[in-house]
């Protein structure tokens, strides 16, 4: 079959990095084609070249027989290609409706926007495309991360493109939302739409993709039929070696409570939450998106104001009204929103990693550079952060590598309680295992870990104990032995609430 999209010999060099080195990528009409590779392999760069956001140093892009090199992003989109980029940008105070129709607002003529029609169409499209019940008048900044993502997807699909590129669309989505998205993708496929799909979740690839192209270090490894492949085989191609354990569970000896939270409340989002975390324990917190998990851990960390509730660290009541106070008590939070809250993209890897613990790297207010550099170098090596140097700005790193910078930030201090909010979103399989190992190391060193995650295998594979949240409350507590995927889902969807209350 003639290719719909043919990218040939693509090379792209950034100062200090060759992101793509002669990559070929060919997509045939009607297929769902996965683009796979480790963090920093060059997937997003390839997509941005297709989108006209970057100019390749070499190589051609041909779509439906027409050469796209040199076209602007608008011109590329006008040819029927839509993108859901990994790093989403939106205008915080724009409403959902304005965002959806940005640049193609329905007009009354004379440049006047037909607002009633815009909002009517916005609600229709939200429902039609993904079955979303989001108020089109709501400002973007009031939406949750997953809602923003769904709006972004809707926006791409409104134009009825013939090729859609998803760059890690499922990161912030819940299982239910992923199901819905896949149903949509399958429907699109049956209508003859072609899809390029980037994800670090291989189960997704096996669920929906027909073929897969694997990149490594900016070069092609292979293109294969998904039905002939196995997950382990693909991992081997991506990583270049065998991965032994997926969830290296460290069983540490569990000691005294290190964190005790009682009756934590904030409006309707967090209601009367109490729990204990022990030394050496990984406490999983599962729930659907919107269950209040992020909000709850933010209260523990002092990031938001709590209405009520008390916290004890190592048996001593403490007052935590700001992140600084939490950090001083030895509590760390790896936040969910990487670019907004996790890293400062306009600063270097080094500046980011040591920001929370900078005092420990200083004498009389002066930064002790040598010690600081050594510590940061160490994390770069340990987590395999792909960067030409520690003074490189974080904005130049690939998405997954930025996430590793966030993790290093919090592992760099000497936290007794480390809260991970969705730590492995956008992280490749190899690095995931590395992060799980680090959690294991934390607990065997006597710290306590709270793992908030929407990925059931991750929660089940790592936690010693699991709390399930539903609508701001803890609805179940399950031991490692009791927990099963069905049970987690049952409680996460509000099952058994009556017998808890």
């Amino acid at each position, binding site marked *: 079959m003639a290719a719909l999209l043919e990218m040939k010999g693509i090379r792209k060099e950034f100062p200090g990095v060759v992101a793509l080195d002669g990559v070929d990528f060919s997509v045939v009409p009607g297929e769902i084609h996965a683009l796979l590779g480790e963090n920093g392999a060059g997937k997003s760069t390839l997509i941005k070249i297709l989108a006209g956001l970057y100019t390749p140093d*070499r190589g051609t892009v041909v779509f439906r027989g027409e050469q796209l090199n040199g076209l602007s992003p608008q011109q590329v989109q006008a040819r029927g290609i839509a993108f859901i980029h990994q790093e989403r940008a939106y205008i915080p105070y724009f409403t959902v409706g304005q965002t959806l129709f940005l640049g193609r607002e329905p007009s009354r003529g004379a440049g006047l926007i037909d607002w009633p029609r815009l909002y009517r169409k916005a609600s229709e499209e939200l429902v039609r495309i993904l079955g979303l019940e989001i108020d089109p008048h709501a400002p973007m900044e009031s939406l949750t991360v997953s809602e923003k993502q769904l709006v972004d997807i809707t926006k791409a699909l409104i134009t009825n493109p013939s090729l859609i590129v998803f760059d890690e669309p499922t990161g912030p989505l819940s299982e239910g939302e992923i199901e819905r998205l896949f149903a949509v993708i399958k429907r699109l496929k049956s209508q003859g739409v072609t899809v390029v799909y980037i994800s670090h979740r291989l189960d997704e690839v096996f669920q929906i993709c027909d073929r897969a192209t694997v990149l490594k270090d900016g070069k092609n490894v292979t293109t294969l039929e998904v039905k002939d492949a196995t997950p382990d085989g693909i991992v081997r191609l991506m990583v270049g070696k065998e991965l032994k354990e997926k969830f290296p569970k460290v069983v540490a000896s569990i000691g005294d409570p290190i964190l005790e939270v009682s009756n934590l409340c904030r409006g309707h989002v967090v209601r009367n939450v109490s729990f204990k975390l022990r030394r050496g324990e990984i406490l999983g917190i599962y729930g659907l998106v919107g269950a209040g998990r992020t909000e709850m851990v933010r209260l523990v960390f002092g990031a938001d104001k709590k209405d009520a509730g008390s916290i004890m660290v190592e048996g001593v009541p403490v007052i935590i009204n700001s992140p600084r106070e939490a950090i001083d008590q030895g509590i760390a939070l790896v936040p969910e929103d990487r670019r907004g*809250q996790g890293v*400062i*993209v306009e600063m270097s890897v080094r500046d980011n990693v040591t920001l*929370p613990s900078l005092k420990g790297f*200083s004498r009389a207010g002066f930064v002790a550079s040598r010690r600081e550099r050594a510590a940061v170098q160490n994390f770069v090596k340990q987590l395999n952060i792909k960067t030409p140097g520690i003074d490189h700005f974080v904005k130049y790193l690939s998405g997954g590598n930025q996430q590793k910078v966030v993790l290093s930030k919090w592992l760099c201090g000497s936290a007794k309680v480390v809260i991970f909010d969705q730590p492995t979103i956008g992280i490749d399989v190899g690095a995931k295992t590395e992060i799980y190992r680090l959690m294991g190391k934390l607990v065997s060193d006597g710290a306590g870990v709270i793992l908030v995650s929407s990925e059931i295998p991750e929660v089940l594979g790592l936690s010693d104990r699991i709390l399930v949240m539903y609508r701001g409350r803890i609805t179940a507590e399950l031991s490692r032995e009791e927990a099963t995927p069905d049970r987690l889902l049952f409680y996460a969807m509000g099952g058994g609430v009556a017998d808890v209350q």
Partner: protein
Amino acid sequence: MHTGAENRPIVALRRPLLKWTFVAEYGTLAAFVTMCLVLSAIAPGFLTFDNILTILRQISVLGIISLGMTLVMASGGIDLSIGEALDAGALVSISLIAAGFGAVPSILGGLAGGLVIGAINGLLVAGFGVMPFLATLGVHSMVMSLEMVYTRGGLPIYPYGGVPASFNFLGRGFIGPVPFPVVALAACLLLFYLMLHRLTLGRYVYAVGENPEASRLSGVNVRLVTFGSYVIASVIAAFAGIILASRVSSGQPLAGEPYLLDSIAAVFMGRTVSREGKASILGSLVGAAFLGTVMNGMTLLNVVFYMQTFIKGALLLGVLALASYARTRRT
């Protein structure tokens, strides 16, 4: 090597990357050096020891103020009342001298004047969350009006009882062949360089300037850092004002006004010097030196007075346009 036939590019696109990267990173410095070379060739007496000291003395006040502006802008704000902080330093110190106080209490009084203005700015921005532009604009117009009331419509303040020699020294003294204001500039430069680029405080300032929320979640006291930036900036501006007052042995109301735009220009120009486009101490020094050298050169060349600011503006825009364009062409 990628010249082998198997790697033959299908379309070899031109790669102006290197050239533009160079312009983006070194364009402003190159422009500055070029200008100095041209001036030494055409302006009589430009490249002499005395003239270079003159330039340095002329830029000392602007240089010191630009340091404060750099700090505030690095922390994500702007200080439109920086000229009034300078005035506060000048008017308060010279009034105290006129009232018969000694040099030390007068200097401290002048600095305190700056501190009050900085604290009000800091309180408005960090405490109440007013946008920096508006907060400092408000303070700017209020203090300007107070100055006019205090000086009864803009009459300069002269200390008729004479100025103590130690106060005189600040603006007119020499250490060896070097005028004291130049020494003061050098000392402030060092201080601010250490503060912004070597101390933990500087790291926090940039972090807050780039992403206050991520900084807060990293345990940075965002409000304190913001507040501190405004206070330090105003105090250093007041110090510049004291030097100016000593130079002219009087308190001139609204003397600080012209420094506002020049200091902002110096910081912006300095940002084009730094690789990632950030406000930096050395960058701002280059910016201030650029502006000072332009003015000096035009005086030497006897350019008509009213054309001088036109030429300064044109050169400034030229450099900024080139550097900004180079940046967009970089990737």
